[in-house]
């Protein structure tokens, strides 16, 4: 927090103070979700380590999850705004479960790849190249 304040111009301090004292809305969550999602996408694109790509996927899924939860939250909903109700939470749950399954399989594939190629560099996975 203090780092954030120190890094920004003095004009930003009231903004932070405002954030501190004002309630949080859905948009706050959406911003966080957007950052997580983007970080995940960049991570997937950038990393050559297969496990790094996996981590990127996890981040993307989490960014989406944040949005689902935010839209379904009973606290954040605006007056009269449409809400996902419980569905958002349940979808988030399914995402978590499927992410676990995905990670298990992806890890198994990665380990297999590692066994066969002695590396986890996905740029070297070109056996099927025509």
């Amino acid at each position, binding site marked *: 927090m203090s780092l954030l304040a120190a890094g920004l111009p003095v004009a930003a301090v009231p903004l932070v103070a405002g954030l501190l004292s004002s309630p949080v809305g859905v948009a706050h969550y959406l911003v966080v979700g957007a950052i997580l999602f983007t970080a995940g996408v960049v991570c997937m694109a950038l990393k050559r380590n297969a496990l790094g790509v996996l981590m990127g996927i996890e981040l993307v899924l989490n960014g989406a999850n944040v949005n689902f939860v935010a839209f379904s939250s009973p606290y954040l909903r605006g007056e009269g705004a449409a809400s996902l109700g419980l569905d958002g939470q349940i979808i988030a749950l399914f995402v978590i479960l499927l992410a676990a399954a995905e990670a298990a399989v992806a890890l198994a594939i990665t*380990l297999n790849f*590692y066994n066969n190629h002695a590396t986890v560099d996905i740029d070297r996975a070109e056996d099927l190249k025509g």
Partner: protein
Amino acid sequence: MAQLIDDDPRIIEFDVRTDEMLVNMGPQHPSTHGVLRLVLRTDGEIVSEVEPHIGYLHRCAEKIGENLTARQWIPYTDRMDYLAAMNMNLGWSLAVEKLMQYQVSERARHLRVLIAEMGRIASHLVGMGAYGLDLGTFSPFLYAFREREKILDLFEEACGARLTYSYITVGGLTADLPPGWLRKCEEFLDQFEPVIQEYHALLTTNAIFVKRTAAIGVMSPELAIEYGCSGPVLRGSGVDQDMRRDGESIYTAMYDGYAFEVAVMKNGHYPRDHAYPPVPSDTVIGDCWHRFFVRMLEVVQSMDLVRQAIDRYSACKGPLGEPVKLTEKIPAGDAYLETECPKGQMGFYLVSDGSAIPWRVRARSSSFSNLAVTHELCRGCLIADVPAIVGSLDIVMGEIDR
């Protein structure tokens, strides 16, 4: 290179390609019994090779022996197997007596048996307790040391020392027992007998203990003989050999008239095994559990021998006899004698040129041979089995490095 077939047991299954890793176990490691260094070549948790590195406790004992008279070297034998120093004293004394053709008095003979067997109990107690420690249970170790302390108290009363006794010496013993010692010794035995059941309950029959030791580090009789293993390690593989019965006459004569059965499995039974917990079904002869169990049996066997020795010693009315002079000349020639020490067959070899100081002194360490077999036993085991296997061999580094 050997031809490989599909069910070749030497092919190790694996889940993930992992690099072989060299791990240093020791010389500063909680479970290597002193300053032993084991270099493990592991693949994950699976050990593919164990290489013992020794020599951290080398003190030139043999060379020193070539500069001292035979009796002067006795304290150096104490420091070989420091857990069973009495038996070390006895081994060297008998070897020298063999060359000198010296006959100790009857009283000294029985006293030697008494002391040596007490020493065996003390050593096996350490072996047993420390084995529990290797497997991760601490309490039996202290129970064992509690009883060992009582033996050490007795030894202290007899010779004034608790660890390095120099009590048995060339030509007899340095002193007779103090008055009342035998009564205390009998009291100890009476008190100790039921305690053994505790050890059986905590270790021998404990389900986890059996799981950790059964079928681990299985040593076939042939392998044991090939590597020159001896003592409980050899008998644990079912080889019926005990120097007290099969040794040279000067040594077996000491046990003349004593009734004891060698603790070895014959026809699927240990001697008097109705008195002990049954052998678990998942054990294999020659595994860690059997090596441990043989030690437990030998404790009882030694107690029996001590009781016999007490009777015979107190029946002996003759004098104990004086040990030989410190500077007694040894006749020219050489002699080699192996005795049954707690850890195995401990051999002493000396060559004399006729002076009081031996020309050459060598010791054949039982632990050394027993340790040599670790790389055979540990191949393909898990890391957790390495302490279990090394512990079951019950080595003592003072004897290996000398």
